[in-house]
C-alpha cells in the first residue's frame, strides 16, 4: 500500500505487526515502546523525520486503549498522573533546549547516544537485581507480592522529604508525600524524554515504583495515562511541522490496539516483581538498538 504523505510504499500488515508488538509491550509494561518501534519503522523504510512524529501519533491512540483498560482494572491514579504531567511538560522543554545546545556544539549524536546506552544499562541491571531480591523476599518471608520490593532506600528518603505542599495519593495507597517529589519524577523523566526523543516510560515506571513507592500495576497504568497526554501534545506539534503520516499511524494503531488489550490483561497473571524482572530485559534491547545505530553511523569507531 502506498502512503502518499510520507511518500513510501509499505505492507500495511508490517506496520500493524510493529504496532501489535509495541502494543503488547505497552499494555504489559506501561511503556510507549518508542525505543523499539522507532528503529523498526526506520528499518522498514520510513523516513527518519516521519518516524518520530508518526510513532508519537500511534502511541497516543494505543495508550488511550491501554490506559482505559488499566483504569477499568483500577490501575490508574489520575491525581498522580496529573501532577507528573506538569513536571513532564517543563522537563521536555528543558530537554529540547539541551538538544539545541548540544547540536550547535556538534556533539549531539555522541553525547545523547552514549548517555542513552548508559541510562538503559543502569535501569536494566538495577531492575533485574531488585526484582530477583523481591522474589526471594516473597519466597522466604512470605510477603505479599504487592509489598515485595527488594530496594527501599530511595523510597524512604523521598517519603522523608517534608517540603510543602504535602499531597495524598489514595489511589496508590500513599497517605502523604511532598508534591515536589512527584513533580520531580515528571521533570526528570520529561527531561530524559526531551533529550532522548522517547516517551520515557521505561524510566518513569521504575522511578514511580522505587522512588515514590507506587505499586507496580498502578505505576504501569498511570504511566500510560501520562503518555496519552504527553504523546498527544507531541503529535500535535510534530504534525504541525509536517512530521506525521497519520495514515501510517492509524495502520500501526490497528495492531497496537489489540496488543495493548492483551498486554494489559496479561498483567493480571504476573506478580509485581515478576513484571519488573521481565521489564529489565527491555532497556537492554533499546541499548543494543542504539549501539547498532551509533556504530552503523560511524559516530563511534572501534
Amino acid at each position: 500500500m502506498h502512503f502518499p504523505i510520507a511518500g513510501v510504499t509499505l505492507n500495511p500488515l508490517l506496520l500493524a505487526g510493529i504496532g501489535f508488538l509495541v502494543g503488547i509491550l505497552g499494555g504489559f509494561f506501561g511503556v510507549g515502546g518508542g525505543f523499539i518501534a522507532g528503529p523498526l519503522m526506520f528499518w522498514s523504510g520510513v523516513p527518519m523525520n516521519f518516524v518520530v512524529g508518526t510513532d508519537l501519533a500511534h502511541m497516543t491512540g494505543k495508550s488511550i486503549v491501554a490506559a482505559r483498560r488499566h483504569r477499568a482494572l483500577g490501575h490508574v491514579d489520575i491525581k498522580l498522573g496529573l501532577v507528573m504531567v506538569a513536571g513532564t511538560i517543563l522537563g521536555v522543554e528543558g530537554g529540547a533546549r539541551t538538544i539545541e545546545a548540544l547540536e550547535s556544539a556538534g556533539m549531539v549524536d555522541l553525547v545523547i547516544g552514549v548517555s542513552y546506552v548508559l541510562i538503559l544499562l543502569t535501569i536494566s541491571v538495577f531492575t533485574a537485581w531488585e526484582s530477583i531480591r523481591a522474589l526471594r523476599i516473597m519466597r522466604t518471608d512470605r510477603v505479599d507480592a504487592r509489598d515485595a520490593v527488594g530496594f527501599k532506600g530511595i523510597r524512604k528518603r523521598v517519603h522523608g522529604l517534608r517540603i510543602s505542599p504535602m499531597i495524598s495519593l489514595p489511589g496508590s495507597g500513599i497517605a502523604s508525600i511532598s508534591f515536589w517529589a512527584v513533580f520531580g519524577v515528571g521533570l526528570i523523566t520529561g527531561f530524559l524524554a526531551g533529550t532522548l526523543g522517547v516517551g520515557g516510560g521505561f524510566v518513569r515506571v521504575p522511578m514511580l515504583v522505587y522512588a515514590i513507592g507506587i505499586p507496580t500495576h498502578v505505576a504501569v497504568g498511570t504511566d500510560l495515562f501520562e503518555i496519552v497526554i504527553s504523546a498527544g501534545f507531541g503529535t500535535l506539534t510534530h504534525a504541525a511541522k509536517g512530521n506525521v503520516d497519520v495514515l501510517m499511524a492509524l495502520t500501526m494503531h490497528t495492531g497496537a490496539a489489540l496488543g495493548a488489550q492483551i498486554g494489559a490483561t496479561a498483567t493480571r497473571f504476573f506478580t509485581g516483581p515478576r513484571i519488573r524482572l521481565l521489564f529489565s530485559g527491555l532497556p537492554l534491547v533499546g541499548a543494543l538498538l542504539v549501539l547498532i545505530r551509533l556504530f552503523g553511523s560511524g559516530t563511534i569507531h572501534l
Partner: protein
Amino acid sequence: MKNKDVRDLVRNFVIELVVYGTLVLAYSMIVLRWLADPLRELFNNNLLVYAVLSLGLIVAQGAVLDVVTAFLLNLLPMERLE
C-alpha cells in the same frame, strides 16, 4: 492456571487474532485508501488543520478499537481465565 485454562486461553487468542486481523485488513483496504487523498491535500495545504484532524482521527480510532477489542475479549472468555 490449569492446563485446560491455558489451552482455552491460547485457542481464544488465536480466534481473536484471526477475527481481528480480518477486520484490520478490511479496514486498511477500504477506509485508509478512501482517506488517503483528502489527507494528502490537507497535509500539503493546511498543516495546522491536518495536525488537529490527525489527533482527532487517532483518538477516535482509539475509542472505536477499544470498544471492538473489549467486545471480542468479552465474547471469547479470555478475561475470565485466571
